[in-house]
């Protein structure tokens, strides 16, 4: 057999599908452009009402405050893109903050051991979520819903209904303090640096072999399995990342505002909403980490915007709901 068969003249059959690579990357579903547009829009609206929001100091402090939710969304991204859900992150944040307060009990000496312990606990919760989902084949919606109930119940039970103890200043500085008098920038919150570190780490991971494999698993787990991917382990890794991200978020949130049972309330929904806003498909296989993080930033910007525009507190959920639905509808209609 000669090469004649395969060396078909490029001709019509090889004609490129419209667009080509560059356009494909930006516009294809799961791209980050839509969320960038929305974010830019909200920022313009803020600029109209509150121009000094863009002074470096206040902008940086805003980013610092947004760090926990951005980190949570980043963790959630890996779970969602691998085709699963993590509804337990909010309760995990609460649990971590309450556990930290009780164990540290305002004793600075215990800060670091406890932080280490928190990471261990976050890892454990992630592993549990992952193993139950992958080895027992429980849909992750149910696994993590159960984990949510268990964590909330357990932490209330353990703390007897009210948080006790207290967080040391060492613990709180990550979420609360900043490098003062930084040239040009002014005040540079620690939380922002933590965010940058986590973001770089996770972005590198998402570009690594393991990160790319994770997306393929979310797209088609059977294919992945028949290609030698350890699907269960890969998904478990995603849950672990989410659990660790929740731990970092808990440390920042606890640091920012101190101990309370409200620390993680509803954050799972916020994180999932952020990820979806960022163009990541629920069900897995599509979307970018950067999009998810920008989605979280957009949500935080939206809250700030409503604040600046004096939207009544009682109506805030309505406005939030409308904007989420509008943005997601546009995305859904575009995909069709």
């Amino acid at each position: 057999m000669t090469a004649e068969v395969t060396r078909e003249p490029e001709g019509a059959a090889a004609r490129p599908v419209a667009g080509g690579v560059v356009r494909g990357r930006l516009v294809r579903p799961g791209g980050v452009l839509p969320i960038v547009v929305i974010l830019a829009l909200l920022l313009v609206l803020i600029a109209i009402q509150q121009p000094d929001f863009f002074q470096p100091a206040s902008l940086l402090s805003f980013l610092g405050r947004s760090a926990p939710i951005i980190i949570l969304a980043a963790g959630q991204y890996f779970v969602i893109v691998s085709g699963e859900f993590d509804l337990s992150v909010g309760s995990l944040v609460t649990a971590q903050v309450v556990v930290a307060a009780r164990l540290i009990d305002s004793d600075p000496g215990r800060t670091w051991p406890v932080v280490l312990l928190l990471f261990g606990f976050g890892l454990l919760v992630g592993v549990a979520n992952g193993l139950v989902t992958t080895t027992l084949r429980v849909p992750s919606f149910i696994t993590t819903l159960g984990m949510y109930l268990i964590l909330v119940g357990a932490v209330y039970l353990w703390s007897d209904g009210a948080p006790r103890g207290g967080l040391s200043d060492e613990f709180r500085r990550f979420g609360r303090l900043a490098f003062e008098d930084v040239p040009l920038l002014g005040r540079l919150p620690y939380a922002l640096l933590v965010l940058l570190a986590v973001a770089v780490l996770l972005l590198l991971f998402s570009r690594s072999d393991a990160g790319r494999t994770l997306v393929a698993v979310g797209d088609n787990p059977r294919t992945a399995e028949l290609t030698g991917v350890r699907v269960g382990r890969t998904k478990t890794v995603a849950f672990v990342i989410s659990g660790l991200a929740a731990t970092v978020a808990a440390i920042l949130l606890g640091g920012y505002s101190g101990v309370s049972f409200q620390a993680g309330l509803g954050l799972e929904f916020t994180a999932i909403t952020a990820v979806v806003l960022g163009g990541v498909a629920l069900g897995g296989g599509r979307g970018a980490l950067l999009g998810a993080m920008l989605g979280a930033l957009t949500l935080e910007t939206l809250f700030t915007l409503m604040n600046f525009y004096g939207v009544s507190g009682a109506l805030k959920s309505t406005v939030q709901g409308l904007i989420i639905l509008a943005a997601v509808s546009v995305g859904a209609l575009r995909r069709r």
Partner: protein
Amino acid sequence: MVTIRSETAESGGDPPLLELRGITKAFLDVRVLHGIDLDLRRGEVHAVVGENGAGKSTLMKIISGVYPPDGGSVALDGRPVSFRSPRQAQSAGVGIIHQEFNLLPERTVAENVFLGHEPLRRGLVDTRTMLRRTAELLDAVGETSFAPTARVGGLGVARQQVVEIVKALALDARLLIMDEPTAALADHEVELLYGLVRRLQERGIGVLYVSHRLVEVFDLSSRITVLKDGRRVTTVPTARTSQDQLVRHMVGRELAHYYPPRAEPGRADEVRLSIRNGANDRLRGVDLDLRAGEVLGIAGLQGSGRSALARAVFGVAPFTSGEVRLGGRPVRLRTVRSAVRAGIVYITEDRKGEGIAARQSVLDNALLAGRAVFPRWAGRAARTVRVRELLAAVEVRAAGDQQEIRFLSGGNQQKVVLARWLALSPRVLLFDEPTRGIDVGAKSAIHDLVRRLARDGAAVLMISSELPELLGMSDRIVVMRDGAVAGELPAQATEEDVMGLATGAVRGEPR
């Protein structure tokens, strides 16, 4: 390219059952159909052939109301129609049997057959009528092995195909589109289908028959329409053409021969993979030697354990007992990963379900195995370069390697899958129906590649339901039956030899 216009059959007077004029269709700015004309008479079997990507399936989906055409007209019995949903097409008497099964495994046969048009009595679903009519229809097609109340998921593939056909018949279809109806069938099951199609024909039903298997096309149809690149090349009466001529129309050139030459006899000696007494819940006492440099064909009926054998070697559903040696050394292939690490790769028959990650790019799909099994940070760029070279070498046609693989034709998807595995320089390749649902051009390319791999020293095991392919490609043929090896045949064997062993009519030599 030359477009040969031949007669479009007109039998005067009576309008044809179906008449298409100048159908065009584009997806995302890509024209996939350019002004297709086609007609179908009552009681006629009209075959539509062409390479993958020629636009056959799209055309069928337009006729059956899945997609609206962008231009052109569709007429049924001379009256123009424009279906906006499968439902409208159905009520007009257009039934379609899709390439993929359109059945709900969790529901009963009767529920599947009447899905979408359940018989009503006083506004409620009339279960009794549903069961009775399903039974009647099953009788009518000569199927008595299962009841209308059977759960479809519990039936074998061939029986599911029967359900699929009965489902179309239940609509009182006057026009039945069969899109690759034999893709999942073993050869003897195809015979059953033939009988069915002829019976439909006698009832005056017009059948549009889409297939890659030219033998079937010649057996069944009275006219053949050839599509290429979204254009109609020709429509010819079956009696006045030949397979060679058809292939020429389809690929636009003459094929010197179908299959690349075999290896030199005696070149294949080193036993690369050997299985002794391999067994699991689907296989028993399998002994097999696969030599470097040879293509070993595996034949057998559906369910005979052909795929189970490949999947056992690949660690998907491993052997539970027995011994496997690779290059003379015993190996334990408990997981896919261990098999891949040992240099064994498996190209699945279910490309869409477990071969590709549809929404990932061509490049990501090709990189998947390397990333999964040999993850690394440094050297990623070099690996990507190598995979890109392979993609070029197997001549994948795509808009770029960032294009999502789902937009590629089946043949090109298969080439990407091949590139994925070739990047690992495998020592043993297990092909499971490598050319199923793939157009003639890509088929030859893949045959060529398989042969070249063997020539370069790889050990190739190839499963195929298409006996000509198997006979044309293999250096030896092992026939499976009931989960065991029924016998081995030399390359010169005939189809009859293979079928004899496969069905148990002939006993293999004691081994």
